[in-house]
């Protein structure tokens, strides 16, 4: 990671966003739903007291974006956690047990992969209903097949390793072999995928909000919703779309750079 400037830049960007999110009440001049100006058809753009300008309801855009970082990071993290944990269980069971259970799990995963991921998430939200938790679950669930598939492949390879046979010959029970020998040796690519998936999850949330499938509470400073609400006012105030869009791009780029760095550090085939 030290010899990868991209990863350092990415790490710094992500780190800044995390700091912003944690210190949002201190950094932001006002609350995310606090009205500091008047209603305006053409809200004022950036100026000294409002760095990113105001929106049409008179709320400070900078404050909304800073608080929005909390939301995006939370959604990215939780949905990856959902996808990762389900994928981890399904993938390791499929790879380690094999046979019919493997076929059954993987055919269900194939079925899920047959749908475009975003469409599947839209479908799930219509089933689960709108709301932050439902969105995180939906986005998490649609990433399960990727995790399960990747982990299964690496578990299959490790299952036949000499040290697994050696552990079996010494009477180590199967579950312990899976947990202490097979998983730690097959988890590296999954961790890389998790970081990259987190970036996609943030885009997906923004996309879902843009389509009006976002969190039900209209006050929530979700970046994608800000884009959607203001898309029709592009001519009256570029800042209304520019800053939320820029925030999404910057955070996703940062996470992707970190993921690439991790891949380079963890993938033995790329050399050190």
């Amino acid at each position, binding site marked *: 990671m030290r010899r990868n400037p991209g990863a350092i830049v990415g790490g710094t960007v992500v780190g800044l966003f995390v700091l912003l999110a944690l210190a949002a009440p201190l950094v932001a001049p006002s609350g995310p739903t606090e009205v500091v100006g008047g209603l305006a058809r053409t809200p004022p753009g950036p100026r000294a007291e409002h760095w990113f300008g105001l929106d049409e309801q008179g709320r400070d855009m900078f404050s909304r974006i800073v608080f929005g970082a909390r939301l995006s990071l939370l959604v990215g993290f939780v949905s990856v956690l959902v996808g990762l944990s389900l994928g981890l269980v399904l993938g390791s069971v499929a790879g380690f047990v*094999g*046979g019919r259970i493997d076929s059954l799990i993987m055919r269900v995963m194939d079925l899920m992969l047959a749908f475009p991921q975003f469409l599947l998430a839209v479908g799930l939200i219509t089933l689960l209903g709108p709301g932050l938790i439902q969105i995180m679950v939906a986005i998490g669930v649609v990433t399960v097949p990727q995790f399960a598939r990747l982990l299964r492949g690496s578990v299959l390879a490790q299952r036949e*390793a*000499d*040290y697994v*046979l*050696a*552990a*079996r*010959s*010494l*009477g*180590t*029970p*199967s579950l*312990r072999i899976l947990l*202490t*020998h097979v998983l*730690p*040796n097959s988890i590296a690519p999954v961790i890389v995928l998790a970081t990259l998936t987190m970036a996609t999850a943030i885009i997906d949330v923004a996309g879902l909000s843009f389509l009006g499938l976002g969190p039900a509470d209209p006050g929530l400073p979700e970046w994608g919703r800000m884009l959607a609400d203001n898309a029709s006012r592009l001519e009256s105030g570029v800042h209304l779309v520019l800053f939320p869009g820029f925030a999404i791009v910057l955070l996703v780029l940062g996470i992707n750079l970190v993921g690439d760095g991790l891949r380079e550090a963890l993938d033995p085939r790329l050399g050190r």
Partner: protein
Amino acid sequence: MSTAAEWERPARSAIDPSAIAAGLISSSRSTNNGPLLQVSDLEVRFVTRDRTVHAVNGVSFDLDVGETLGIVGESGCGKSVTSLAMLGLLPRATARVPAGSVRFDGEDLLRLREDRLCQIRGRDIAMIFQDPMTSLNPVMSVGRQLTETVRTHLGYDRGQARDAAADLLDRVGIPDPRRRLREYPHQFSGGMRQRVMIAMAIACRPRLLIADEPSTALDVTIQAQILKLLRALVETEGMALMLITHDLGVVAGTCERTAVMYAGRIVEIAPTAELFARPQHPYTLGLLRSVPRLDSGHDTALAPIPGAPRDQTAALTGCAFAPRCTYATQESRERLPVLTPAPSAGAGHQVACWNPVPEADRRALTRLQGGQT
């Protein structure tokens, strides 16, 4: 068909009674008076969609407490498969064990449930594998891998297990064991890793140690050290040792008895000195002739065995070695020879051959060996 139990066993070095008293030999755990291990008519097949490989075809042998048995043969003759089958470690998807029994201390290992087998593996029977570079988990410290065995089988707590692990590393000749416990496998050399593997295997003082080519992947000097260590451990712990190798030199220096395998069968079994002095099976003779010796002239040509190992996908009629054998007759090709006491050999010497090597040809080998065995 003669079974293992009928074999007349040669006199072996008796077990020191004081060793039993000192608890080095776990005689108390023994529940029957037969041999410690009795393998009878073991068969293993590998079944895939388009063909079946007959890997092991009726192997029988027995092993007493504290005895060392060498199993030699070329690659693919079924040595390793035999040992894996004994412990139920064959890949479940393809391997079948249609016949045979493996009686260990009165229990047939082939009929045991997996959880009972897990108790026996590592505690009563342990195994060492060929390649120490890949047989240790790369992401787990050596100490954790060592303590795993004793914690599983003996229920030690963390502290006890750590002490036991340090003691084990010390016993297999690794200096500064406390510090080495915290290190990872990549910080050890090949020979040191094999010592760690041996330490893991002997952690619970098993009564039978199976070593599958334990020295093959190592340098010659390290090989000698590892074999010396194994010999010493077998002696002090009173373990029975089953040493699988393709190297005749290794069995000569390590094992009391030696079995020669070919195409999934034992073709000859005898006390090691007897086997080297009076090989009865043409295949054994061929093996001995194909090994260079220090005391033969530098212009002495080695005599390789003509032909290639048998394709084991077809079922067998007659002797598997017949196509490569200069002594083969019509009978060899049509009727399967079984292990019987060799007519012109010493006690405990059995051979599965219709036409054992004539005395004159054996003498040629003995002369080549400078009269020594």
